[in-house]
């Protein structure tokens, strides 16, 4: 399945997933807590720029190109946040708040850009292990996440089949007539999946 991961060999890519998650969370939280004043604007923007420059995402202009791509994907959030804030609370807090929010979002994106999903799944399983004393089964959590990941493309194909079948009969693309057959197909798949898991010793 498609992920947000971009292969690379920089230090951020090589850093273990658990500590990397904590590092990025700390930076993002620090940026989020900046006050709504003019001084926050260059600070937030610089942290975001530096984050992309020092992360070692790739050679030459690659990091800035990636940052540009992230910002382009956020254009609607930037626009709506900026305009609504200028209308309601004035220019200074509007620009400061928007810069702060956007900097936090693009910095947080560094995690997905530089870490494979499997590495993060392993990190989650390890990170939850101390909670086993409280009755949390970390292996079952990891199984649940993995099963869901592998189920999404299967259900995506089933959804396309249902749509194709309806189109072949000349039905319009309408949520209500699509969802009921799709739900029944998906729930039948859930029963099969449950049986398959039981057959493999998952109780």
């Amino acid at each position, binding site marked *: 399945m498609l992920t*947000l991961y971009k292969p690379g060999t920089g230090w951020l890519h090589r850093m273990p997933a658990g500590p990397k998650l904590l590092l990025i969370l700390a930076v993002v939280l620090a940026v989020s807590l900046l006050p709504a004043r003019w001084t926050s604007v260059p600070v937030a923007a610089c942290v975001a720029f530096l984050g992309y420059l020092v992360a070692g995402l790739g050679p030459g202009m690659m990091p800035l190109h990636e940052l540009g791509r992230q910002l382009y994907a956020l254009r609607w959030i930037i626009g709506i946040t900026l305009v609504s804030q200028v209308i309601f609370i004035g220019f200074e807090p509007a620009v400061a708040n928007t810069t702060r929010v956007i900097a936090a979002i693009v910095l947080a994106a560094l995690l997905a850009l530089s*870490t494979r999903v499997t590495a993060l799944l392993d990190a989650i399983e390890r990170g939850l292990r101390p909670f086993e004393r409280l009755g949390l089964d970390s292996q079952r959590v990891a199984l649940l996440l993995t099963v869901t990941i592998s189920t999404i493309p*299967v*259900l995506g194909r089933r959804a396309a089949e249902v749509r194709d079948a309806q189109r072949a009969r000349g039905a319009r693309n309408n949520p209500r007539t699509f969802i009921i057959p799709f739900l029944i197909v998906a729930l039948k798949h859930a029963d099969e999946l449950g049986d398959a*898991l039981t057959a493999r010793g998952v*109780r």
Partner: protein
Amino acid sequence: MPISEARSHNSAIRRLDATSLARVAIFAAIVAVLGMPGGFSVAGGVPITVQTLGVMLAGAIIGPWLGALSMVVLLALVAIGLPLLAGGRGGLGVFFGPSAGYLFGWILGAFVIGLIVHFGGRKPVLWRTILGMLLGGILAIYAVGLPVQSMITGLPLGETAILSLVFIPGDLIKAVTATIIVMTLVRAYPRAFRRVWASRNTQNLESVR
């Protein structure tokens, strides 16, 4: 009934059995698939996300605990970098954006819907389903989403609420659609709910007696 009730409650909190695990995974996947391209456009080509429709259905069909758990699973996968939200959004960043609270609201929303629709382990009926969709699918999601949006953007709560009014008509359409789907499913595929309800005949007998 008390046995199945205790089992489903127990399994959701303490130990998730294979069947429940599969159903949780499927509903997380359903919400993800509903956000994929190839979606729908209604009312003159305005694109809408039908993902909240999936949230409403999760609570109503697999119940409060499993429904909420399936939303936790979906959000966990989004957080570790899968682009599962509408428009291919994903990654840790969405939890720091203006709509972060609405995502957490999905967990509470699915739970509240499940509680109301499955109230006392009874069969979903029209009025309880629509009440659940309105209270859980709209009110509960906004109750978490609005304060977080206001906190993140720094815009006061009142103004944030005014901005969000744009989405209310779409939410009402989704609540009605979800209700129709649940009521159809109760008749067409009662197996979906994995519960046994007393049939109409025995209820009549009891009222005679």
